C-alpha cells in the first residue's frame, strides 16, 4: 500500500493507529489517582511528542543515513519558528502559510550552512554546525532584536497588520487556526473517572508527522537513500564509482533542515510564541540524543527517542520531594527518608540524571538503540531461519557492531 512493501506499510499503519489513539494510550491512569501524575495524554505534551518526532525523523535522514553528525540542527528549528511567527504577524493566523514559509526559510538557511559546513567531515563538520547554531542563537538573542524580539521573543499581537485576515474580514483574534479550526481547541471525554483530551492542534501535528514519516520511509527505500547509506559506509569508493558525493550530502542536509523547519513552524502553530532559547546548543544536542536513544538509521527509532525524552522532561521533572514523601509514607521513617533522598536526585530538576543513565545503558548495551535492541531481541527469539528479520536489520543499517557474522 502507498507504494511501500508489506513491512513498511504495517509500520506506517501501526504508527498511524498509535498516534490516533494516543489520547487514550497516554492516559492509562484515572484522573485523581496517585498515578495520574504519569499520564502523558495532555495536549501540550502530545503535541511535543509528534513535533519533536518530526525533528528527529529529519535529523535521522542526515545522521542515520549519511553518518554526518550535525550539532546545530536547532538553528533550523528556530529559524523555522521565527519565519512562522512573522507569517502570523503579517499575513494570517492560519497555520498553513506559516508552516510552508518555515519549511522554505529553514531549507534556504540549511543550504547556506550545509554548503559551508560540508566542506569538512567528521568532528570538524560537527563543530562547524555547532558554531553556526550558536551564532544564530547569539544573533537572535541580541543583534537581530528588531526581527527576533531578542530575549523575550515574539508573539502575535492584536495590533499586528495580518493583511490577509483583515482583507477577508476575519475578526482580530490572535489564535492560531486552520481555516477557522482553532489549534488550542480541545474536547474532553469522561469515562468512569478517566479523562481523555482530544486536541485539534495535536491531530493536525500528528497528521503532518505521519506524512513526514511516510516521506522518510520513501527516502530510506529509494536509490537516493541507498546512495546516502553508501556515503556513510565508504565515501572514497563512492567517488571512484562515478558518484559526486558532495551534492548528495548537501541534499540530505537540506532535507533534514527542512524537517527541522517544519517542526519549528508546527511548534509556533501550537503555542504561537518563539524565543531564542529554541536555538541554544542544548536543543541541538537533544535531537542527537533522541536519535541515538531510539536507534540511529532505523525508521521509527527517532520518534520513540523523541517521545521518551519529552515524556521524561515533562513528567519526571514534575515529581518533587513532597510527592515522593507522600508515595513512600508507608515505609518506616528512616528507610523512607533514604529512598526519598535518593530518588529525589533522579526526579524533579534531576531528571537529566535519569536521562543520562538511560542513555549510557542504551549506548553500552544496545548499540542499535531501543529499536535495534527490539530487533535483536526478536531475532534471538526466532533464530531459526527467519531471514526477513535479518534483512530488516541490514536495511535499517544498525552499526556494524551489531551486524551478524553468520
Amino acid at each position: 500500500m502507498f507504494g511501500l512493501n508489506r513491512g513498511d506499510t504495517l509500520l506506517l499503519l501501526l504508527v498511524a493507529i498509535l498516534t490516533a489513539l494516543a489520547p487514550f494510550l497516554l492516559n492509562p491512569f484515572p484522573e485523581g489517582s496517585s498515578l495520574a501524575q504519569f499520564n502523558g495524554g495532555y495536549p501540550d505534551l502530545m503535541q511535543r511528542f509528534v513535533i519533536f518526532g518530526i525533528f528527529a525523523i529529519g535529523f535521522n535522514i542526515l545522521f542515520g543515513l549519511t553518518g554526518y553528525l550535525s550539532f546545530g540542527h536547532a538553528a533550523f528549528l528556530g529559524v523555522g519558528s521565527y519565519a512562522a511567527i512573522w507569517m502570523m504577524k503579517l499575513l494570517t493566523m492560519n497555520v498553513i502559510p506559516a508552516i510552508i514559509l518555515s519549511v522554505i526559510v529553514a531549507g534556504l538557511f540549511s543550504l547556506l550552512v550545509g554548503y559551508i559546513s560540508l566542506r569538512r567531515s567528521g568532528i570538524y563538520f560537527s563543530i562547524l554546525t555547532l558554531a553556526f547554531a550558536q551564532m544564530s542563537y547569539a544573533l537572535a538573542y541580541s543583534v537581530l532584536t528588531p526581527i527576533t524580539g531578542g530575549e523575550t521573543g515574539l508573539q502575535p499581537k492584536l495590533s499586528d497588520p495580518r493583511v490577509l485576515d483583515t482583507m477577508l474580514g476575519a475578526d482580530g483574534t490572535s489564535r492560531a487556526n486552520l481555516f477557522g479550526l482553532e489549534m488550542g481547541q480541545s474536547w474532553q471525554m469522561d469515562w468512569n473517572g478517566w479523562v481523555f483530551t482530544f486536541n485539534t492542534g495535536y491531530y493536525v501535528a500528528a497528521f503532518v508527522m505521519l506524512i513526514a514519516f511516510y516521506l522518510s520511509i520513501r527516502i530510506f527505500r529509494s536509490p537516493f537513500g541507498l546512495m546516502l547509506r553508501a556515503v556513510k559506509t565508504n565515501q572514497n569508493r563512492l567517488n571512484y564509482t562515478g558518484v559526486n558525493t558532495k551534492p548528495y550530502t548537501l541534499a540530505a542536509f537540506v532535507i533534514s533542515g527542512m524537517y527541522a523547519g517544519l517542526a519549528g513552524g508546527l511548534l509556533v502553530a501550537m503555542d504561537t510564541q518563539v524565543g531564542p532559547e529554541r536555538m541554544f546548543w542544548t536543543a541541538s544536542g537533544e535531537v542527537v540524543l533522541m536519535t541515538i536513544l531510539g536507534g540511529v538509521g532505523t525508521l521509527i527509532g527517532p520518534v520513540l527517542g523523541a517521545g521518551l525524552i519529552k515524556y521524561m522532561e515533562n513528567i519526571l521533572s514534575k515529581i518533587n520531594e513532597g510527592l515522593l514523601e507522600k508515595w513512600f509514607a508507608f515505609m518506616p521513617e528512616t528507610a523512607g527518608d533514604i529512598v526519598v533522598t535518593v530518588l529525589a536526585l533522579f526526579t524533579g530538576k534531576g531528571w537529566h540524571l535519569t536521562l543520562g543513565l538511560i542513555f549510557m545503558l542504551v549506548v553500552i548495551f544496545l548499540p542499535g538503540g531501543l529499536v535495534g535492541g527490539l530487533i535483536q531481541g526478536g531475532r534471538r527469539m526466532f533464530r531459526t531461519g527467519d531471514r526477513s528479520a535479518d534483512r530488516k536489520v541490514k536495511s535499517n543499517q544498525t552499526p556494524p557492531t551489531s551486524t551478524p557474522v553468520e
Partner: protein
Amino acid sequence: MAVLQVLNVSKRFGGLQALNDVNLSVEQGHVHAIIGPNGAGKSTLLNCFVGKLVPDTGSVMFDGKSLLGIKPHEINQLGVSRVFQTPEIFDDLTLLENVLIPSFAKRDGGFKVNWWPRVDRERVVRDHAESVLQEIGLYEKRDEVAGSLSRGDKRRLEMAMCLSQDPKLLLLDEPTAGMSRADTNATIDLLKGVGEARGITKIVIEHDMHVVFSLADKISVLAQGTVIAENTPELIKGDPRVQEAYLGGPQE
C-alpha cells in the same frame, strides 16, 4: 587504436622526481601491465589516471578526452573503473546493494535525487546487478553483509562492482596483493575470463611476475619514474635492463 595515451608526464613531490617524462600507450582490448620495483612511481602514475593527482607536465588522454583536472567521479562516468589495492567496498551494505550502487551511478549519472522509486522495484537495474553477481559467482551470497566476506570474495565483489558499469577501461592496482596462491590463481582466472568476454581494456599494476606474465599482452617497466622498457611479456623477460632494475639496480 590507443584507448589511453600518456604523453611526457612528469610529477615531482618536493625533492623527489616521482615520474619523469613517462610515455605510455594502451591499446584497445589489451591487458597492459605496469611493473617495477618499489617506489618506481607505479601508484603515482595510476593516480594521474583517476583524477587523484594532476601531473606537473604532460597529458593523459582517454578516448580522445583529457583526464587532467577533472574529478574522480567524472572520470568514472567517462568509463574508467578502478580496483584498489585493498578492496574498497561498502562494508555495511549487502552484496546486492554493493553492485546496485555502481549500476545506479551508471544510469543516473553523478548526482540525482531519485527519492521516490523503490530500490526493490527498479527491475532493470536489479536484474543487471544480479546477473553480474551470478557471473562472478557471488549470487548465492547477495543478501549477506559485504564486510563479512573473505578477502578473496571482497576482491571479487569489487570486480563485480566495476563490471556492472561496463567500463571501457579497468584499472587494477595490485589486484592480488596479500592473497594466497590459490586466491591469486582464482583472481587471474577471473580477470581472464570476465575481461576477455567483454573485451575490456585493462591496466594492471602488479608486483607478482606470475600474475603479470599470465595476464599481460604488453608490459611497461617503470624504474625511478621512467619507463625503461615496453614490450611483450616474452621479450621483457629477456631484457637485461629489466633484470638490472629488478635484481641489482641502484634503487634496490
